[in-house]
Structure formats: C-alpha cells, structure tokens
C-alpha cells in the first residue's frame, strides 16, 4: 500500500470515525448534565424567549467594542468563509464527499479555489501574528498553537499539491489527506469544538440575561 493509498483509505476513514465518535462523546457528555433552574420570576413573561436572539446577534460584536475587536472579527470571518468555500467548493473535495455520501454539486473554477485557499492561509497567519504580538490580550496556551498548526497544515499542503510545488504530487496529496485526517481526529478534543459550543453557550447567556430583561 502506497502512502497515498493509506491516506485515502484507512487513515481518512479512521479519522472520520474518531471525529464523529468524539463529537458525540463530548457533546452528549456535556449536554446530558442537569440544568440548574432559575426559579426567580422573569422580568416579563416572554422575556426568556428573547434570549435566543443572542445566538444570532452575537455573530458581530456590538458597536461599543468595535475598536478592540475589529481586526480579530474581520480576519476571523475572512478565514472561516474562505475555508468553508474551499472545503465544499473545489473538484477533488466534492469528489471525496461524493464517495462518502453520494451527494455532489457543481464546483468552483480552480483559480477561485486557489485564491480562496491562499486567503484562508493568509488570514490564519494574520491571526497568529496578532496572537504572538499581543500576548497579554490572548493569554495563549499550548492548545492554541497546536490547533493553529493542525488547521494550517491541510491548507498549506493542499495549496502546495494543487500548485505542484514541494515534493512529488502524489506525496504532497498524501500529506494533504493525512494532515486533514489529523485535523478531523483532533477536532473533537480541542477548542475547535467551538463549531458546536457557540450555539449553546450564546443561547444560555442570552436566556440568563433576558430573564432579567437585559439584551446582550
């Protein structure tokens, strides 16, 4: 079995199984915990329901915090959107998804895929530079840096394979798939779980404050 065959076969499949099992373990393990009851009378009868707005409203920081959050927010959005488009938009990814699920859709032109991949990688660097430049603001841990490397690797190797730079194409492709496998397997055990937590976390705070008549 070649490295590429290993990457395309057992490695990526095992990683996906670990990812799904990990998501389930960590989500269920937390969400089955009891919910503390706030028995105090809400400020208004339907007030609590308004709390769910926070799930959406917190997608952008309030004007009050514009100066301190602009860089992080804008760059993070650029990164997330570019990355998502690359993941679901280029031909080889769609073929991979089709092999797993049978679903497929039209792909974006190659030049656009390369452009978006480059933007995603560049924004990732923009984020780590700021993290390194302002240690007092970020209070970074080892986990923050590991997560950055694990996310950056598939982007870097993917772009290199696509552009035929670095090692032989088959090797670069294998490295791209292996680093993606690492990302999949690592996701549930890291802060990358925020992809799920943000919904619950925002809703909880939104509800707790709405109970008191405060819109956050």
């Amino acid at each position, binding site marked *: 079995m070649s490295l590429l065959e290993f990457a395309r076969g057992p490695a990526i499949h095992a990683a996906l199984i670990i990812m799904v099992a990990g998501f389930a373990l960590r989500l269920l*393990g937390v969400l089955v*915990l009891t919910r*503390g009851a706030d028995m*105090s009378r809400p400020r208004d009868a339907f007030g609590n329901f308004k709390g769910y707005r926070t799930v959406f409203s917190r997608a952008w920081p309030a004007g009050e915090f514009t100066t301190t959050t602009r860089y992080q927010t804008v760059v993070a959005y650029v990164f997330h959107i570019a990355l998502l488009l690359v993941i679901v938009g280029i031909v080889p990814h769609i073929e991979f998804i089709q092999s797993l699920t049978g679903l497929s859709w039209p792909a974006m032109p190659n030049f656009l895929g390369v452009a978006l991949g480059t933007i995603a990688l560049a924004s990732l660097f923009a984020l780590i530079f700021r993290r390194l430049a302002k240690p007092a603001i970020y209070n970074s*841990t080892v986990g923050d840096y590991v997560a950055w490397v694990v996310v950056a690797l598939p982007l870097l190797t993917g772009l290199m394979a696509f552009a035929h730079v670095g090692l032989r194409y088959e090797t670069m492709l294998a490295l791209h798939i292996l680093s993606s496998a690492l990302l999949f397997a690592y996701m549930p055990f890291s802060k990358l779980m925020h992809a799920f937590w*943000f919904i619950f976390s*925002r*809703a909880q705070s939104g509800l707790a404050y709405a109970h008191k008549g*405060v819109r956050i």
Partner: protein
Amino acid sequence: MSTAATQANPSQTPVFPSFAEVYQGLAGQIGMLREMAPAPTKSDEQRLKGAVDTLIEETNADEAVWLESCIHCGQCTNACHYFQATGEAKYAPMRKMDLYRRVYQREISPMRWWHRLVSKPVKLSDFEEASELIYDSCSECGRCTMVCPMGIDTASLVHHMRSAMVAAELVPPELAALRMEQKNMGTVFGSSPDALKKMVDTIREQAGVEIPLDKDKADVMVLSSAVDLVANGNGLLATAKIMNHLGVDWTIRSDGFESANFGLLSGDMSLWKHQVDPIIEAAQKVGAKTLVIAECGHAYPALRWNPMLSSGELPFEMMYMSEFLGKQAKAGKLRLTPFDGKVTFHDPCKTGRRGGAFDEPRAVLAAMDADLVEMPANKEYNWCCGGGAGIFLLEDATRLRDESFKIKIREVNDTGAESVVVSCASCRLNFESGRQKNNWDKQVHSLVELVADHLIDDETATKGQARGAAA
C-alpha cells in the same frame, strides 16, 4: 448638597454627617476587619476536597458549556476594567475560569479519563493563588460577556469559584470577617435591630420624620442597609421622607431589614439563603404587596434574582429602590423640583447589566427635568466603578480599584456633567473614595437622597391637591 435641598429646608442643619465623612468613618472600620478575620479550621486536605466538591456540585450543563467554549480569542481582555487599568495579562477575564476549568476537566468532563492522565492534580495552593482573580479582580460585572463571541458568562463562573473559596476557607479577610459576623450575629458592622431602632428614634427626634417601624400590616415593606444604619443616616432619612411624601402604607421590620448579604458576596450559598428567608417571611407576615430593596447593589440579585427563590409564587413584588422610585415617577406620583445642571447616571452592575433596571432611575431623573447626558459606555455596556461584589472592602484590591476607577472618571468627564448619580451604596463609596483620592471636581449623588432633596414641599403639595379637589 444641591441648591434645591437648601431651598426646600432653609433653616435645617444637617442631622447626619456628609457622605464624604461617612466614607472616611467607614474606611476606618473596614481597616479593622482584617484583624477580625477567622483562621481556617479544617485541614488542608478537607479544604481542598471541600472546594473541589463544591465545584462538582454546582456544575450543571450551563457551566460545563461555558467552560468548554472558550477559544482564547482575547476579546474579553479589553472589556475588563481591571485589565484596562493595569494592562496585566493575568487580569484577562478568560484567566479567571482557568482553575475552575481544570477541576471541571479532571472531575466532570466527558474527557476526564484523558485529563487525569495528562494534567496535574489541583492543589490547595492553586486556590490560594486564584484568590486575586476570584475576589480582587472580578466584580462580577459581566461586561466581558457583552463582547465574548461565545457569550460566556464569566461572572457566574467566578461566582461558583467564590463558593469553592468559602469551602476552601480562602475568603479574603474582610469578607470573611463580615460573613462570620452576619452568620453568627445576624449583623453587618453591628447593624442590629437595636441599631435600627436607635436610627429610627434619631430620625424622629432630630429630623422630625416618622418611620413606621414594625407595623403588623403594610402595603410596602422597605429594607435598609448596614451602610445606612451605622454610618449614613441620610439614606434612611431620605427613604422615610419619600415614603411619607408618597403617602404609602409602609413599614420597616426589625425581623427582616438588612439588604446587605455577605453570603452572596463571599460565595456562601447557605448564608445567602439564611439571610433572605427572614426577609421573605416578614414581608409575607405584614401582607406586603411590594418589597423595596435599599440602594445596595448586590441585594438586588440576592433577593429579586435569587435563583433559589420561586419569586413568581410570592404574594409580593420585589423591586430595587431605583425601580420603585421610577415606577412612582412614571405614574406621576413623584413630583420633584427641577435639577439644575448637567448630570450623568452610573448603572450599578448588579442592577443594570446584571439586573435590567435601566429605565426606572432615568425616569426619576426625567421627573426632575434633569439634563441627563449618558456616558460613552452606558446601560448594558457601562464600565463597572471597580468596587462591586465586595471589592470596595478589600485592602489587597486597592490598586486595582483605584486604577480602574480612572476609567470611570474619564467616562464621566466625557459627558461634561457636573454631577453623577449612583444608586448603590458600594458604587457610591467607591466613587467617594475615587473623588477624594483624585481631587475630582464632580458631585456624587445617591438617587434616593437626591429625590428626597427635590420633593416638592409637603404642605404646598397638599394644598394644591386640596384646591384641586375643591374645584
């Protein structure tokens, strides 16, 4: 004192000292608290176990999700006044839940088997070191929650840590001393039922204002607070003037009058409840329809937002003094003389961002035609004064408090107002401290005292009403 007050009572000499003197007197008493702090009684192992067990017991899905959600994006750091004031990384809000998260990961998390393999066990010294983050540098003001993209409620996580610190016998000396006083003697700075009675007598004899103490039945039950009873008689005097002026059927009960709750401030949930129960009982006994909480910020969450109390089932409504006054003003019952000059309003964290009483105090200011100018960051985004959640009392937090108050000075100065109105004894003490230390040229008013000073003279009002009735 405002000019309106002098006009309203031209001949009256003050019965009680000014708030500047009140602050100086209290500062002396607070200084003595450290010597009165109890020493730990349990072994280190028991203290550590108590702290960890407390966190395990208090961790529900909400806390777990919040602990899981932090991505270290750094947004909260700049939102915290203690970080802003010092620029020191350790005061970033995200750091304040680190120890809690370690306990969570090792004891509760679905990944605990893994964390037990790779992380070191938590030690009592970890809790000792966290004290500065849990008490001195977090007023549980919740401003960081307003910016967190995950919406993590750091303040409530810090509050669970305070409960753990109670079990670890690591409450800062000042709060520990007051907690023990309230637990063992039911008083705060000696604010006993006798002290209440004496204050009521003083107010009757020297200010000629009647306080209906211990009535059997009353529509409105009013709470007082230790600050009013042992230092600032003007607070209770102002409350009495307003209640009498409104003509409400009210009382203060010596079996439930204390707003201050050092159970809540220290993190002692059982003392919290122990302190709240008699108040609720007294209010039910007198058949109150309204319970008015004195201008004591944390008393609002202690009573009105007490999660352990099914307040929807109680026959009375609980409201903060500013809410009560605001409702009276909105109903047109509070007729006040105009307030001259520009003024700004400081929302106490516990009644504002974490309480939701924004409109009412502003309605009171509107009732005196005040030229209200909001601070650049106001209401939900208001900067904490730096003295909340008991921090005003902590000697170790002096630098943090003083430095962070400079943000408040800047905010108030930006409005161009000559005076700032607060509605919380802690905020007011902290403002007074900041005013004196910085030779700040602003006046600081308490909402309730300001209203009392601006009441339209009783006789004129009565005559006006009588004329109205005759016509």
